[in-house]
């Protein structure tokens, strides 16, 4: 069964047409990853899915319900955790207060459990968001989304700008969430590491899905992986 189904999304920023009929599915209890170069429309896709930038055409179904026209907070309240690009920590609030913002749906995740998962955050409880390192901010952003007790977790480039050791930690946490039964939709530019933990992969280019398949299959195609992983932002093409 699919946790999330997007069908033919067309999304615009004002007059510029960004998504040209994006369709994808997130399978229950699996990690689905969306890859693609800078400006491919990955963030826009996620924003359309959660209602921050609603698509003009197409349909979004989450947990079997048509959420296409829903305001963002209703989508989230359904059990969709969102870890936005750039983490979007509230810089003026302490770590503790950042964790008070999300709606608390019933479930196993509490602030105490988030501190258990990320002991670094427990040490910095009283620090303000702006005083945290990038890695700590990422942990806080993930912890904040977990407090919603999501059934679907959407992460937008969680490894962006982090030191390799922290990146590994972040991926480990994402894999652990899947093992706890949370379905995951992951946007990444770190091709190798995300293929390692993913089940299903979509590749987006120019607002269109140009490839979809199992992660294992794509990972096995070393030539393609190397091309995708090593490509600079300017010249990124999917070799056929």
């Amino acid at each position: 069964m699919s946790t999330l189904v997007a069908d033919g999304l067309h999304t615009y920023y004002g007059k510029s047409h960004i998504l040209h009929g994006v369709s994808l599915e997130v399978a229950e209890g699996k990690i689905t990853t969306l890859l693609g170069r800078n400006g491919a429309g990955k963030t826009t896709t996620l924003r359309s899915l959660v209602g921050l930038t609603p698509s003009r055409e197409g349909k979004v179904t989450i947990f079997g319900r048509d959420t296409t026209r829903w305001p963002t907070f209703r989508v989230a309240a359904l059990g969709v955790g969102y870890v936005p690009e750039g983490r979007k920590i509230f810089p003026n609030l302490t770590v503790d207060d950042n964790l008070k913002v999300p709606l608390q749906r019933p479930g196993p995740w509490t602030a105490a459990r988030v501190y258990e998962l990320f002991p670094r955050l427990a040490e910095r409880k009283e620090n303000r968001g702006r005083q945290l390192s990038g890695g700590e901010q990422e942990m806080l952003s993930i912890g904040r989304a977990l407090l919603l007790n999501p059934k679907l977790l959407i992460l937008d480039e969680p490894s962006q700008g982090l030191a390799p050791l922290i990146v590994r930690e972040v991926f480990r946490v994402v894999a652990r969430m899947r093992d706890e039964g949370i379905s995951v939709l992951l946007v990444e530019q770190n091709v190798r590491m995300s293929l390692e933990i993913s089940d299903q992969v979509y590749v987006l280019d120019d607002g269109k899905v140009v490839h979809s398949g199992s992660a294992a299959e794509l990972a096995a195609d070393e030539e393609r992986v190397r091309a995708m992983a090593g490509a600079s932002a300017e010249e990124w093409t999917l070799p056929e």
Partner: protein
Amino acid sequence: MDTQLILFNGFNGLIVGAFYVLMALGLSLILNLSGVINFAHGGFLAVGGYLAYTLTPYIGFWPSLLVAPTLTAILGVVIERTMVRRLYGRDPLYSLLLTFGLAFIFEDMTRAIWGAQGVPFAPPEYLSQPISLDLFFVTYYRLFMMAVVFIAVLALFMFLRYTRIGVRIRAGTLDLETVSALGVNVRALRTLNFAVGIFLAGLAGVLAGGNLSLEPTMGANVLMPSFVAIIVGGVGSLPGTLVGGLLIGVAAGLTSVWFPSASEAVIYVIMAVVLLVRPRGLMGEEGVMT
């Protein structure tokens, strides 16, 4: 210089500053979370005062002190839900025009209902006594007023600091989109925040009515200085608004000791000087609270 005269005017300034603070805090809340410059805020102040005037014969002064601002806040909720909300996210000019129009409507409505002449609104007799003959201008009512303002401000800051909703309001001030992505009903949050701001205006109206008298134009008179208080304190910072309101109130009061005719102009001079020295206001740039 006569110390008593200085005390008299300084104290008057403090009272006036306290009104600015109540008004400006409400204006700030609404501006920070919803991006609306509420020109109708003074109208809500007048409505609060007149409602207390009408209610007091029936329910007494003390209940009116809470009931009138609450009714004012409910009126605020109706207006937010039916009109102001539609303009969120648009150019601020739209909501500015709307509230500007509402301010006129409020003024004329109060005039139509309660008359153009000022009406007296007397607090209980025992509150009107001065505390001593030397300090004849320090009545119990004025001390009581200061206490109410103090309690209201303290309650507001505790609410923002310690409650979950308060935390969400502070978060939403900087990034409402992310607050909504975390499942918080931001429409309800904005409505509630609007109601809190209007409650403070209504409360200011009740207190002002007991201090001077009720006039349909009473709101318009404190509106501009309240905006000045926000700018002096630093847009976005509630503690700044608090400091700004008291500062310009006392400054205007003291100025009237020496240059009575300049007492209104002085607040704009202060604003100009503050903006020259600190373009973002005294406590702007991510103040302590928001």
